[in-house]
């Protein structure tokens, strides 16, 4: 296989990953690394570098569309980015000390967890936050458009969400993913922010988080231009296409199929990591 054929195949794979990632809300980055490492025989460090770049492209590319709808909350996002960017730096430094096999195992476990998170039903929330909490002090409470008009919301448990965001950032920096699933978990479940606000704000944060580790990866020589080129262009095109289709149809079956793909890739990564094939 020469460079031209290789690039075309990687581009097609990334296009599919970006498309399915946008359609299912799981993000394309989460399958790029296993795709490159398992199917294209790419060293996991190059795969992580290329994936990280595609994550920035997807997040920034989609932001304009989300902002227009008025869901994302700039203050919540910016405050939590302190945690995710410091976490991302920690993750990027950790990546140089952890063996590729161990990274593969951790990646596999994160894939299992992401598939689980996106498929379970969300439990109901308890009572509204008390006034005088961190969320009110930091003026995070806001409102968003719903079918029944403008609805206001209060933000709970800011320290808990902040802590989980640090974990999300570390995973992002270590594995080259957006870790949107963990970010949404922190906002939706821990901080009780409406789901729609959580997902759009998470998408907004992903690019900044990934940029914090991308500098370290670039400086360390993990980002290969020839490999990153088809990955970035493919995931970007795929996710924009997916976002267009998304407004028309959101298929439950597709989400289940994509989750099964993620589970299979996760199992293969864990197996290869444990048997030292990475």
């Amino acid at each position, binding site marked *: 296989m020469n460079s031209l054929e290789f690039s075309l195949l990687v581009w097609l794979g990334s296009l599919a990953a970006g498309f399915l990632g946008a359609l299912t809300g799981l993000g394309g980055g989460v399958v790029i690394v296993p795709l490159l490492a398992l199917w294209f025989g*790419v060293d996991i460090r190059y795969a992580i570098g290329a994936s990280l770049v595609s994550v920035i492209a997807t997040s*920034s590319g989609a932001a304009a569309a989300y902002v227009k709808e008025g869901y994302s909350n700039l203050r919540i996002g910016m405050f939590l980015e302190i945690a995710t960017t410091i976490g991302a730096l920690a993750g990027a430094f950790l990546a140089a000390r952890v063996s590729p096999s161990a990274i593969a195992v951790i990646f596999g476990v994160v894939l299992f967890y992401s598939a689980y998170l996106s498929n379970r039903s969300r439990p109901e929330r308890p009572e509204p936050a008390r006034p005088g909490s961190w969320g009110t002090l*930091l003026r995070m409470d806001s409102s968003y458009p719903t079918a029944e008009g403008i609805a206001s919301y209060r933000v709970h448990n800011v320290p808990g969400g902040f802590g989980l965001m640090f974990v999300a950032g570390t995973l992002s920096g270590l594995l080259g993913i957006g870790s949107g699933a963990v970010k949404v978990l922190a906002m939706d479940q821990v901080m009780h922010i409406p789901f729609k606000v959580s997902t759009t704000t998470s998408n907004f944060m992903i690019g900044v988080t990934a*940029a914090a580790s991308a*500098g370290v990866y*670039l400086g360390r*020589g993990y980002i290969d*231009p020839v490999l990153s*080129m088809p990955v970035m262009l493919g995931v970007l095109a795929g996710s924009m296409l997916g976002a267009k289709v998304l407004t028309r149809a959101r298929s439950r079956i597709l989400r289940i199929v994509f989750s099964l793909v993620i589970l299979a890739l996760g199992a293969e990564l864990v197996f290869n990591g444990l048997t030292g094939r990475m």
Partner: protein
Amino acid sequence: MRAWTDDLVERVIGTLLRWGVILAASVVLAGGAAYLVLYGSSIPDYRIFRGQPPDLRMAAGIAKEALSLHPTGLIQFGLLMLIATPVARVAFSVVAFALQRDRTYTVVTLIVFAVLMYSLGRVAP
């Protein structure tokens, strides 16, 4: 002059991000097309990790390679632009919060900006 409401700030940021990505993707595409025309028949090998040469790791080297129109330098320059896009977004937010006289969030945003600058400092010796 219009007031810098949160809504307006978010819309400007959205536009900024979109144009940053379009620009970066165009440069990557141009560099990639040039690479494949020149070296499309070479055999790629990513099995063994070697890391990039210094000229494709540091901002000055990347700019030099891009200016002399080396395909890999162009792609890397596009990727550097892409990484800079969210950083520009944060920088803009610092100014916007300062104009709103929102001290808390000016400081919050400055912290995020400092972390990003530290990271980007790794490519600018």
